[in-house]
């Protein structure tokens, strides 16, 4: 009995101490969506339970290790008891109730994260080796960045062009695979203006690690400006700054459109030709002829990659960059490639 009281005191004290620490550790990244708040609340309940069970098991184990160790030259055996049916039933039933409680909570939270809304913004997300593409069917906008207005329900419709990928923005907490030949759905409501990244979470081949694209959560006003710019109907107010530097645009697009997954900027060989020293170089094509890499050739190779394929490379580059990139972005890419000498 003395031992039972001792160990109970130790467990209670240690549980509260560890709970205090655990509840003050920032376990998760920024909470940037309604779903993140729901999921984090459930997760912290999990953490509390974990802390208690962790202390319970380790407490009794360590207490036994230190208190019930065999003394030197003590030939006697331990206390003789076989078990205790009442205890066994207790520690079968209590965990059973606990896990069922968590499952019920899980079901409730899941249904909340999946709820649809009337005014939701639909975005079509397409994953392919190794880039993301986003379309806004309402306005016919295609983009390599996912721009979202803050505090508005978003309905993502996910597709894959080739293999299974997975849409994950850690700050949003939710994740959904994209499966070739199937349509998948994910809903979320961003709550924090900021820049995040969607990171492919399902191993999808060579450049899986680099299958990332920017996610920009904007104020409703900024989102409207972006939308108008993409539609070409934006009228800048007086005195607004001049257009962005094309090299900066190109550098950003090179990442967001997934170019750098196949084209290195440091001369190393990947799936496609490196961009380092590319501009001005004379390339041998698959049919044996040669071409000097100039602006026109680069433009053609971006919008119609199969037209003049460089010898030694496969025709694997997607053919739709002419649709998903704006003319300014293509120009930016070309200017950026020119700087890589």
């Amino acid at each position: 009995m003395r031992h039972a009281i001792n160990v109970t005191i130790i467990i209670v004290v240690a549980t509260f101490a560890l709970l205090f620490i655990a509840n003050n550790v920032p376990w998760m990244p920024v909470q940037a969506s309604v779903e993140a708040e729901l999921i984090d609340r459930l997760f912290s309940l999990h953490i509390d339970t974990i802390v208690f069970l962790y202390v319970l098991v380790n407490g009794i184990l360590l207490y036994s290790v230190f208190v019930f160790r065999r003394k030197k030259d003590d030939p006697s055996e331990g206390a003789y008891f076989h078990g205790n049916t009442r205890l066994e039933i207790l520690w079968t039933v209590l965990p059973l109730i606990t896990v069922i409680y968590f499952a019920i909570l899980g079901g409730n939270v899941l249904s909340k994260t999946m709820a649809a809304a009337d005014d939701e913004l639909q975005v079509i997300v397409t994953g392919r080796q190794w880039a993301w593409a986003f379309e806004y069917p309402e306005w016919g906008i295609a983009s390599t960045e996912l721009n979202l207005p803050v505090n508005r329900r978003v309905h993502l419709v996910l597709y894959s062009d080739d293999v299974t990928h997975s849409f994950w923005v850690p700050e949003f907490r939710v994740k959904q695979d994209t499966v070739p030949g199937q349509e998948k759905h994910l809903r979320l409501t961003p709550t924090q203006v900021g820049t995040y990244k969607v990171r492919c979470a399902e191993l999808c081949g060579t450049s899986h690690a680099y299958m990332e694209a920017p996610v920009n959560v904007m104020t409703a006003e900024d989102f409207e400006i972006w939308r108008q710019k993409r539609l070409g109907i934006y009228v800048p107010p007086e005195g607004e700054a001049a257009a962005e530097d094309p090299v900066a645009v190109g550098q950003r697009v090179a990442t967001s459109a997934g170019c750098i997954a196949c084209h290195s900027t440091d001369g190393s060989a990947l799936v496609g030709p490196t961009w380092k020293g590319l501009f001005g170089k004379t390339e041998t094509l698959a049919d044996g002829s040669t071409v000097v890499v100039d602006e026109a050739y680069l433009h053609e190779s971006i919008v119609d990659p199969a037209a003049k394929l460089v010898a030694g490379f496969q025709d694997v580059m997607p053919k739709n960059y002419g649709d998903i990139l704006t003319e300014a972005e293509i120009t930016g890419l070309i200017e950026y490639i020119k700087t890589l000498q």
Partner: protein
Amino acid sequence: MPTWLRIVLGFLVGAALGAVVFVGVRAVGGLPPLADDLRPLYAMAVFSGIIGLMLGIDRQLGLPRGLVGMATGFVVGILATVGIRSLMGLTPWDTESVWVVASFIAPIGFLLGVGALSDWLRWIFGIHTPEQHGPPPGKPGWFRYFGFDQNHKVIGIQYTVTGILLMGIAGTLAMIFRTELLAPGMQFLQLDTFNTFIGMHGIIMIAAILLGVGGMANYLVPLMVGANDMAFPRLNGFAFWIAVPSALLIIMAVFFGGWDTGWTGYAPLSVRTFMGVNFFLIGIFFFGFSSILGAINLIATTLMMRAPGMSLFRMPIFVWAVLATAFIQLTGTQFIGLSFLMVVLERNLNMGFFNAAMGGDPLLFQHLFWFYSHPAVYIFILPGLGIVSELLPVFSRKPLFGYKWIALSSMAIALLGFMVWAHHMFTAGIPNALRLPFMYTTMLVAVPTGVKFFSWLGTVWRGKLFFPTPMLFVLASIAVFLIGGLTGPPLATVPTDLHLHDSYFVVGHFHATMFGGFVFPFFAALYYWFPKVTGRMYNERLGRIHFALQTTGFYIMSLTMARTGLLGMRRRIADYDPAMNIQNLHIIMTLAGFAIFIGVLIGVYNLVVSARRGEVAVMNPWGSRSPEWQLPSPVPEHNYEEPFEVVGEPYDYGLPGAVYVRMNGHEKAGAPAALPAQ
């Protein structure tokens, strides 16, 4: 001729023959005899040189004969494919086709060469073959470990040593890619090499664990139930030896471009990746035979060959764990074989099982794959948890708390294991009508697992604990498996899993379950039965150093993995975004990983050296009541001269005069007086 000359000559002749065969096969296939890249030729020459070297040591040795059979199988398969393709009017040589067909034939060649089929083939012709006992006439004792043998103890050691070797390969791969992750950006590995290495690390570890489980079960189960061997000794040898060419096939993948799907081989990526994937898929297909046949043997032995008086609830608890495991292996393994075979067929014969454009379904692969691969987790951990339950009473000098509850919890886990597979697909886009039920079933696994934990606590409570190396590893198993267990429910709850799925949190979770459920108990078992197997004692000091390095290293590594995953680190990425600020965590994980690696190296060194030079062990150094400890060390060829009789409970430590087995008319109680001083 002196031995050294035969070894040198064997190597040279082997290497020359290998090179000739290599050039010849290419010529027959219509390729230029020498490729631009000569490395495959050198690899082939070295490989066949090593076979020649082994044959130089002894021409009767099974392993090199098996390798010659395997090489012959490859040549036959390649020639047959080239021939058939020519007859069909196709180009004779298609690299992937010829190697795929050859990979199906090569393991059969190995089994013929090693002698695993010899007895059965003789029976076809009506030739009687007796069971082989001891090394073949005129051969030294070590000879039988390198060839086909029917004794369960030899096979158990073969399984264990092969398992440790594979673990070494897989662990080395982990150290390589862990070093790569020390800093953002690619340091010294190519992306494809990294992706191949993570897949190989995973699948070779799984093969190693299955072999380790097979090793413990084969060695211990007949001894514990009082049998002199397994029910089907020839099948037992076959089940081990088919695992060897399978493992070689998986390793061969790296010479054919590797594969970048990870060990899960998800279609459609596995249909599109490099041709190396075929070797991995076919290797695992054959490995499955080892699991299934081994399971049949263990079930038959346990159910039919127990000593008189040994009712099911008087078996040593480890036997219960193995029985539960064997049921999973017997009924689940077919599904991974099937799913991998379907990928091979889709790749090579364009059958669109998983191709949506041809009416197939990519998710079908995941269902088939996880229907085995989730229960497989319990194949890995149940025997390990059985070891914990087996050893705790011995080192606590107390009865096992709640024997029946522990025994039945293993069965409950085995059964539940088949009802939870879709939790691996919570983010795959399956309907809620599947996600919710699978969340409930997955949660239920916590209940029988909890019973085990609490019963272990009941076992150590008010015991007389002492702490030689095996007990330290048992305690570490509990502490580490606790991390694995407690990180489970957040993954089983669908909403939290939406964040955690495919993150490093999962990596931390399953490494903790694998280490707590298999690696730590496996080493506990190795140290514990080492004196019984070898007749010598391991070095206690080195054992403690091994324990300290592996335990602290692993504790830090798994917790850091889980932490990094919460912050957004994905599984299986060759490079990470420096903006995430997780480099320090990666440095910690890598250093901790090396601590584990060095610890294991010290452990293996300890076992290898002690097997030859350790102190001679007493018969029952731990004062165990289990029947195998009442035998001389090492165990005699035929285990028990006469069958023993079970007259009491297995774990009645602390009850004066309690008897478990009566052997040769003597009552064996397990003597506490023989305990080592603390």
